[in-house]
């Protein structure tokens, strides 16, 4: 019962992610979560803006179904399988509290200082979330994939482009956390 309720360690989660990769391969598809963004734009008639969205998106409807399932999985896991408190390295938690006044580590799944409904009253937080999302969407389509498409599928298939992309993910992430966070949140 505990394994259902406790957070899963990496050696449980990692092999299960590989299982998802193989399940999709045996269904004839490649694991990658960001292509649904293009599918969603195309389904909302974005082909009027750019021919990038003018393609047979209905043939990619499967990835919207995976997204629907993912949301259902999130509902099930958060409501019935977790207390949604993420404990991280205590030094990192301390640093978050000292430098950025983010004190919800160990108590919440996402920092309530940024993600709670009250925090949405502050336009600064809305700008952070919107800008972060825009860079994720733009970067994933420009770079041709995200953490799953490049990080898991591409690397598993020994693709050099995916290695370059993953390198980019980390360069960007490290720049953000180490150089820009002090300017944005400090």
């Amino acid at each position, binding site marked *: 019962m505990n394994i259902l309720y406790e957070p899963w360690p990496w*050696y449980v989660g990692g092999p299960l992610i590989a299982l998802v990769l193989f399940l999709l391969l045996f269904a004839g598809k490649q694991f990658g979560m960001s292509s649904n963004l293009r599918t969603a734009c195309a389904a909302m008639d974005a082909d009027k803006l750019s021919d990038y969205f003018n393609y047979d998106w209905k043939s990619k409807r499967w990835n919207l179904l995976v997204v629907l399932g993912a949301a*259902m999985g999130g509902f099930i896991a958060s409501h019935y399988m977790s207390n949604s408190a993420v404990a991280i390295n205590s030094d990192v938690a301390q640093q978050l509290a000292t430098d950025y006044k983010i004190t919800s580590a160990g108590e919440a799944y996402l920092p309530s200082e940024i993600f709670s409904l009250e925090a949405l009253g502050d336009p600064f937080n809305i700008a952070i979330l919107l800008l972060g999302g825009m860079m*994720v969407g733009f970067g994933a389509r420009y770079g041709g994939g995200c953490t799953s498409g490049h990080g898991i599928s591409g690397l598993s298939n020994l693709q050099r482009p995916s290695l370059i992309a993953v390198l980019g993910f980390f360069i960007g992430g490290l720049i953000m956390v180490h150089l820009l966070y002090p300017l944005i949140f400090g």
Partner: protein
Amino acid sequence: MKNIVYIIIGILFGIIMYKSEAASWFRIYEMFQFGSFHMYGLMGSAVLLGIVGIKVIKQKNIQPLDGSDMSLEPKDKSVTRYLVGGIIFGLGWALAGVCPGPMYVLAGAGYVSILIVILGALIGTLIYGVLRKKLPH
């Protein structure tokens, strides 16, 4: 019938992302601070098993259940788009603390704020679609 299969795979994926805490802002931040092996172990073990499994699939020429070809086409060769796109993605990943899969998982978990991130991701995708021909690939 096939639709249900995709939804079930999605549910499995969503539960894994939530339970392994890969969908948690805190875990992403901790990863970029090199504060824990967790995220590296998560991705590393998935990729290691993925490499072995795909090798076997290729060697034994295993086909998907419906008899189609395995979706394992090589990616287009380039450096610019992967590096620049990757860096922009990484900046967003660390700023919002979430990547494209877990966005939907968190939406299902009831975090309303994540809808703003999803909206941003759709806008970012639109911008890419409009600018694509002007960008070096």
